[in-house]
């Protein structure tokens, strides 16, 4: 039994500590292990496999908590059968969890640099722990810029935290939506257009991007136009991850497996495969 529980393919039972409604179709689950000897450490950018019992398993990025707080937060958009089942779960119910898996955002390596964080849609979720880690040692970094785009104003995630990030930590938080009515006083347009409105030193900048692949392609293009070096741009790739440990090959991306070698890649390491439709 002990051996089975230690297998990377076996989910551990986690109790749902809190369910947070984020938007009309997106929610967060804060979970804690039922076995208290099980750790809850992770690196910003990593993901877990969440298992809705009897329904299925999905890879979900870890979106929190803040340093020093308990649990592991997963922000999930209800778009399918498994995420729909997870959406039905209530506080104190149990979810299966394997992880954490995958690579992390380069927090330590980015000390001394300006940081540009670009997120599209639910892509802000895996970037939030990176932001927490940066803010936890704010004086080690130069400008911190958050550029965040969504479809409509009501799709914005974590809105209550924007003012803290702006006011307490001096983060340049720039938001944009694809379309809006007159109630929205912010920017309208795709997230890439915010790059030229932000104040940072391109040569001395590390960029971390998470969003739909099309968005990231144009974001990288704009960052390069601003002369951010390719080896200072980090992207997250998404494919059909099943086993999360490089066994099954479902998430193969060129010579890499997204689950094991990614999901975060340095752009110059994968650029020859990035945007190729057959891969």
């Amino acid at each position, binding site marked *: 039994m002990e051996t089975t529980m230690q297998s990377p393919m076996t989910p551990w039972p986690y109790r749902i500590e809190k369910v947070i409604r984020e938007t009309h179709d997106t929610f967060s689950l804060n979970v804690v292990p039922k076995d208290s000897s099980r750790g809850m450490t992770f690196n910003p950018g990593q993901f877990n496999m969440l298992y809705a019992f009897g329904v299925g398993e999905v890879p979900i990025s870890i979106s929190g908590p803040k340093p020093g707080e308990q649990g592991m937060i997963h922000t999930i958009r209800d778009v399918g059968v498994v995420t729909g089942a997870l959406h039905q779960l209530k506080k104190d119910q149990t979810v299966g969890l394997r992880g954490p898996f995958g690579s992390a955002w380069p927090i330590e390596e980015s000390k001394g640099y300006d940081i540009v964080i670009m997120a*599209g849609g639910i892509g802000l979720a895996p970037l939030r722990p990176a932001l927490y880690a940066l803010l936890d040692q704010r004086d080690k970094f130069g400008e911190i810029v958050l550029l965040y785009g969504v*479809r409509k104003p009501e799709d914005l995630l974590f809105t209550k935290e924007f003012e803290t990030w702006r006011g307490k930590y001096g983060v340049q938080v720039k938001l944009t939506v694809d*379309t809006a009515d007159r109630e*929205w006083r912010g920017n*309208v*347009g795709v997230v*890439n257009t915010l790059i030229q409105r932000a104040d940072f030193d391109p040569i001395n900048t590390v960029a971390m991007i998470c969003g*739909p692949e099309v*968005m990231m392609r*144009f974001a990288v293009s704009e960052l390069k136009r601003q002369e951010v070096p390719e080896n200072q741009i980090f992207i997250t790739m998404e494919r059909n991850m099943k086993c999360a440990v490089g066994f099954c090959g479902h998430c193969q991306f060129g010579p890499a497996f997204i689950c094991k070698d990614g999901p975060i890649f340095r752009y110059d390491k994968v650029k020859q495969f990035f945007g190729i439709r057959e891969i």
Partner: protein
Amino acid sequence: MKSLESILGNHPFFENLAPEYLTLITGCASNVKFEAGEFIYRQDEEANNFYIIREGKVALEVCPPGKKPITVQTVSDGEILGWAWLIPPYHCQFDAQAVELTRAIVLDGRCLRTKCVEDHTLGYELLSRLLPVVGRTMEATRLQLLDIYGNND
């Protein structure tokens, strides 16, 4: 107090423009200010103005009949507003409304067109600055059309 010429010269759109052209363009320029909610131009109006945004934010809107106006793009500090003044039939395609107090330099499109016809090098200079803006706008529009954050992304 800064002169119009120095304000224009410091705007990203006119970065590194030859001083003699800057002087020429300043001849078509004047300072303007729009309060939040004020319309700068309306759809189908004659497009005779080219705005260099100094500070503020402007929403480009379409207003489907019987529905609320929809903002499709915003432009702000360091950007430009309007290029229909350059291309026939010189008609505005959207409503432009200041979202917040907006200060800009307005250039008379007819005056600029005349100067571009008289001096093709100036025309080339302006077009080579406008085309990247138009290109990026088109690129952004295509991305918006893809609805990449929707449920099917």
